[in-house]
């Protein structure tokens, strides 16, 4: 009592609820943010994977990177580069398709009989020309002498001579395709359309090219 008055009357007690400052809500906010980040990342990875999976193959195609044996992949890579040279000579030369013997003498793999050729199944190559209307075709068939190491390869070179106006007429069909058969003596169809080759047991070999890898890793379309 102070001068007849109670202390409570002089200073009335006021009750107020004060939350403890222990960072409890911040923890929940942090966990929420982490979960949100994880969800966004997971969705982004999922979308990215979907792009990669979009490069799916047909049942009549093989992926050189994934489906061929190392020895066969060596033959395929060499044949793929040789096709560029065969095409270049055909377009910019006198319109001839290179002979197997010419490429052998010029050390062009897989036609040259070198150490790689011996290790990759000793394929015997032959060229077949098929002038058919406006489409000029050359086939290079390679059959293995060691069937336990490699199957057979068929390089189909084609060139449109639309309107008979020279070698460089535009065509929607690729200038070359490479086909594979596990048989050492594969059956060759009467005509060399995609359907005829598929029916005869051949499968088209599709490479994983640099442009595919750039699309997969950077999402850029290379022309």
């Amino acid at each position, binding site marked *: 009592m102070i001068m007849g008055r109670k202390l409570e009357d002089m200073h009335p007690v006021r009750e107020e609820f004060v939350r403890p400052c222990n960072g409890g809500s911040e923890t929940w906010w942090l966990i929420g943010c982490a979960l949100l980040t994880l969800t966004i990342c997971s969705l982004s990875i999922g979308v990215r994977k979907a792009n990669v999976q979009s490069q799916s193959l047909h049942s009549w195609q093989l992926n050189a990177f994934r489906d061929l044996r*190392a020895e066969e992949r060596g033959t395929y890579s060499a044949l793929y580069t040789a096709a*560029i040279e065969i095409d270049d000579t055909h377009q910019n030369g006198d319109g001839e398709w290179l002979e197997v013997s010419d490429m052998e003498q010029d050390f062009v793999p897989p036609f040259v009989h070198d150490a790689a*050729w011996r290790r990759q199944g000793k394929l015997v190559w032959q060229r077949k020309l098929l002038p058919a209307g406006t489409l000029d075709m050359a086939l290079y068939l390679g059959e293995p002498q060691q069937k336990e190491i490699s199957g057979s390869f068929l390089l189909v070179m084609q060139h449109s001579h639309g309107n008979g106006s020279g070698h460089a007429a535009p065509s929607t069909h690729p200038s070359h395709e490479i086909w594979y058969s596990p048989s050492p003596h594969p059956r060759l169809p009467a005509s060399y359309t995609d359907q005829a080759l598929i029916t005869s047991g051949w499968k088209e070999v599709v490479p994983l090219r640099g442009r595919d890898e750039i699309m997969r890793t950077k999402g850029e379309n290379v022309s």
Partner: protein
Amino acid sequence: MIRIYLLAMVLLCMLVSPAGADSGKRLRIGITLHPYYSFVVNIVGDRAEVVPLIGEGFNPHNYRPQPADIKRCMTLDVLVVNGIGHDEFATEILRAANMEGRIPVIQSNKDVSLIPVSGTLDGKKIVNPHTFVSVTASIQQIYTISKELQKLDPDNAQEYRENTRKYVRKLRRMKAEYMQRVADLPGLDFRCATIHGGYDYLLQEFGLQVTAVIEPGHGLKPSASQLAKTIEKIRKLGVEVVFTEMNFPDKYVDTIHAETGVRIRHLSHLTSGAYTADSFEKGIRANLKALVDALIEAYQLRQGEAS
């Protein structure tokens, strides 16, 4: 008389000046890695100027762009890149120079058939970006670069086409020299390991595969447990030779040698030294020689063991 003399001089100048100079300025072609300098110089000859995007003596794997690179990039008409590894700095430089989309970029590997890194510890198929450490995959790139340059510089297209053929033939003959040296070796079961996955394209030229790769990723040092696994794999698979990088001594290669007794030989990654027209030929020749020597040595050792 003076008029006739001046006219004759003008006509003489027109006759001796190169065709490219007549049709305007020479292309300034940027390149990112050493092999591409050699490829492009051999394609264009003196009809265009070839400019390395970064200076000599830098490691392209961890290169950080410098202000001088950005300035240099702004003077280019076209840029030639590997595009699938090793020259990521090119994108950064193009962006920093505000040249992205303003000059054509030739993706040398766009049509190369890629192969996986073989001999990885986990057996996963990872894309191998070292297409320039070989002859055949390089030839494919030389054709791609040449075709694109022919489109960009049609006045000199014929010259580029002829130069390309000559250069490709020269490279192929060089490879044939070394293939000839191993022509008489019977089918040898040659087992080798490499320090990184950079030599698959080169070994593929000989029909060989890498048995084991030591680095878990390009430029990553193996941990103690990974090294132990590699040593076990080398012993188990009977690896005879480890190809390591020239001028890059690594302690763990010595450890592998001490533990297994495997022979150590050197190959080059071809991305160092001076930018010269023949640096690719010299580098790849040294690699072909190292590989052929190792094959002959392995054969002779087998012969010695057998007798």
